């Protein structure tokens, strides 16, 4: 087994069987839904360069092999709250981080 295969097996163990959160992903213009297992991160962030508004930096970490349906039009429902993607950082060693906002752009 290569190192890459070992890493991907580890990701499967973490994302499929680990302590992740199940969220609802609505896509294809609202016509399709799927459940994704993700890590949901909500860290403090001050908005604007001078930090004049208290806010939060919201993101999910999802296994890249499960992120194929995520687009700019995706809608995520996490514990009853709706979020919209504002930035997709792309694949990083088998995982993808999507930054979210409570408001649509």
């Amino acid at each position, binding site marked *: 087994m290569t190192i890459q295969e070992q890493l991907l097996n580890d990701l499967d163990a973490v994302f499929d069987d680990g302590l992740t959160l199940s969220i609802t992903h609505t896509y294809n213009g609202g016509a399709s839904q799927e459940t994704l297992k993700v890590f949901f991160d909500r860290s403090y*962030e001050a*908005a*604007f360069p001078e930090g*004049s*508004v*208290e*806010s939060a930096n919201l993101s999910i970490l999802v296994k890249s092999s499960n992120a194929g349906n995520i687009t700019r039009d995706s809608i995520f429902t996490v514990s009853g709250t709706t979020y919209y993607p504002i930035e997709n950082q792309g694949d990083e060693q088998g995982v993808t981080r999507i930054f979210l*906002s409570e*408001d*649509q752009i």
Partner: protein
Amino acid sequence: MSTTRQSIVDLIDTNFKTITVVNGFSSNLGNNVFQFRDPPLADEELPALSYGDVSDIIGEEDEGEHNLEISVEITASGTTSPSAMRDMIQDVLTAYKLCEESSLIAEINYFDSELFPEMAKKKYMKARIRFGIKYFTEIFEI
């Protein structure tokens, strides 16, 4: 003893606090007026108006002439549209223009305004407006 500058700032503060829908404005910015607000604003404080008398330039020919610059920031969040932000800028301009009725003030000016968007947990918009006020005192007084 209150200075002329303090009296002018008090007047500006009073006028900004009249910005409510009940008073005929398009927003309720007057409910959240802050002077030199430093700590970050919380979502529940928005929309907010923060202002300060950031500089005073003395006249070249008359040392009793003051050219006060007033800097105003409007911060709003959520579903506030760019057009609603423009309405709030107009609210601030309308309230500010009331200052010209004061006998303390010789002249008021509107310099410029800018709009800035930001995305974080919510969608935020900020507008920055700069005004000028000319007034006169004895020299070495503000």
